[in-house]
């Protein structure tokens, strides 16, 4: 005898409560058509197969040799070749000037001002910092 509670609902351990996608409150999207849902489910199925293949290779006890994850390789290629694909845009110009030119110019001006004052003080006989111990 099949208990009535299990009809239309699978394991109560599943997050969806065992209900199918049509009845699962977490999966009802008002702005997504059923065609799009089906396409997304197909994509997830392909990704699931790829994941399973990767896990099989990872957990294979007889494997010898390193194997690379192509997604990781692609990610590293992008990160390490950003300079080769640099394009001058207002944003990159702004960033370059703000973090490359302005600090150096500002620091140069700051040091020139401070050193000029220091040298004038030195000629007048005033020490650098009156209470400093490193006046040598």
């Amino acid at each position: 005898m099949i208990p009535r509670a299990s009809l239309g609902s699978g394991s109560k351990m599943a997050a969806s409560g065992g209900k199918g996608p049509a009845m699962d409150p977490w999966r009802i999207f008002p702005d997504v058509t059923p065609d799009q849902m089906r396409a997304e489910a197909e994509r997830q199925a392909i990704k699931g197969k790829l994941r399973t293949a990767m896990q099989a290779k990872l957990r294979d006890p007889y494997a010898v040799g390193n194997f690379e994850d192509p997604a990781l390789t692609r990610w590293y290629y992008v990160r390490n070749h950003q300079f080769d694909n640099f394009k001058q845009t207002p944003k990159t110009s702004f960033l370059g000037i703000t973090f490359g030119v302005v600090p150096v110019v500002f620091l140069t001006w700051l040091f020139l001002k401070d050193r000029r004052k220091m040298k004038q003080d030195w000629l007048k006989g005033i020490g650098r910092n009156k209470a400093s111990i490193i006046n040598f």
Partner: protein
Amino acid sequence: MNHLVLGYVGLVIGVIVTKKSMVWRVGQVGSVLLMLPATVLVNMNMTISNVSYMMTSDFVSLGLTVLSIWLLPLMLLASQQHMVSESLIYQRVFVGCQVFLTGALVLAFMASDLLLFYIAFESTLLPTLMLITRWGAQKERYQAGTYFMFFTLVGSLPLLICLIGQYQMVGSLALDLSYEGVFQLSYLVNFWWVGCILAFLVKLPLYGVHLWLPKAHVEAPIAGSMVLAGVLLKLGGYGMMRVSLMWGATAMLSSEVFLALALWGIVVMGGICLRQTDLKSLIAYSSVGHMALVVGGVLTGVAWGYNGAMVLMIAHGLVSSCLFCLANLWYERSSTRNLSGSRGLIMIFPLISLGWFLMSLMNMALPPAINLFGELVAMVALYNWSPYSIVYMSLGAVLTAAYSLYLFGMSQWGNTMKNYKNLYTITSREYLLTTLHLVPAIYLIFYLGLMF
């Protein structure tokens, strides 16, 4: 002291003519034996002294000479693995390149004439170029070699012109003469001074002209990376100290631009290191940051600055070289330098993690390592030069600690990657390599004569 350089010439010849089974043995044993003549160089006077026919040794050159002599057997030790499958003639050229490079470096550090120093400085370029472009691992090595050569050559041409001009004005380029009061104070002196130090600023490298360094360090084989990070960068610092004999006064008058670049460079390099995904690239960018502090120390013109820069150079040479060795021993096993692709190494290689740990701690200038003392002394000199520098130096120090810990944490902790299946244990050769880096670094903690 000529016999030290002649020893390297003899070692190159020895490597070329010996039979196949003895090439590496001759190279390694010979390079270890050549440390013995270096013991006569111990002369800790600050000023130029002990001048023989064309060479001198004083405190400044001693440390770096011994460092370059020490690094040669280590370079040969580190390259054994990837050179096993090369043909005999290439092995001979490889070992010969490194021996020639070390000989040129020793000549450069011991030269008592600025033109001899320049010749040796330039002659270190060619073996390094050969190491990078022939034995590098990726196709980007050609661009790396080009950047390396052209940056250094463009920087050093003004140096040659200024040295020749100095020779015509003064009549000699010997280092044991004092040049004070030779030139009248005109604004042209600044250009002369910039011409003299531009080569060394490119070599160090200073922040604005540092583009060659990450490329060259990453694309070079392990021997190339070790010698680049360990000694070749220090040629720049050493050269600046030598020409400061004449130009020290000008440096004290007009070094604001370079110090601004250097100080901002420490901060920027700290930030860039935190974003790196390549293990070797992170260590390479950290070299730029450390050398920027050396620039700062030298350009202040005071004795504390020179001392701090000196100690920092020796410390950084050992630490960076060891970090490259450690990165390389992972690269040889996994064929990857990716930072997030090399995690959890403390579980796979526990004992070599000690090497990673100690070197990362020394890289972030943890006391009692000599890195700290070098940084501290250089920072004090810079603070005396201008108190506003403390902001950037402290920010730089914090970021240095951050990326050193990031490097150690990303590589050692975390879950191990399961896609590396043929990891063989760390060989005793690699333990020896790490030990030979660690022992001088720890010994120098107790050798206070280095600084004071």
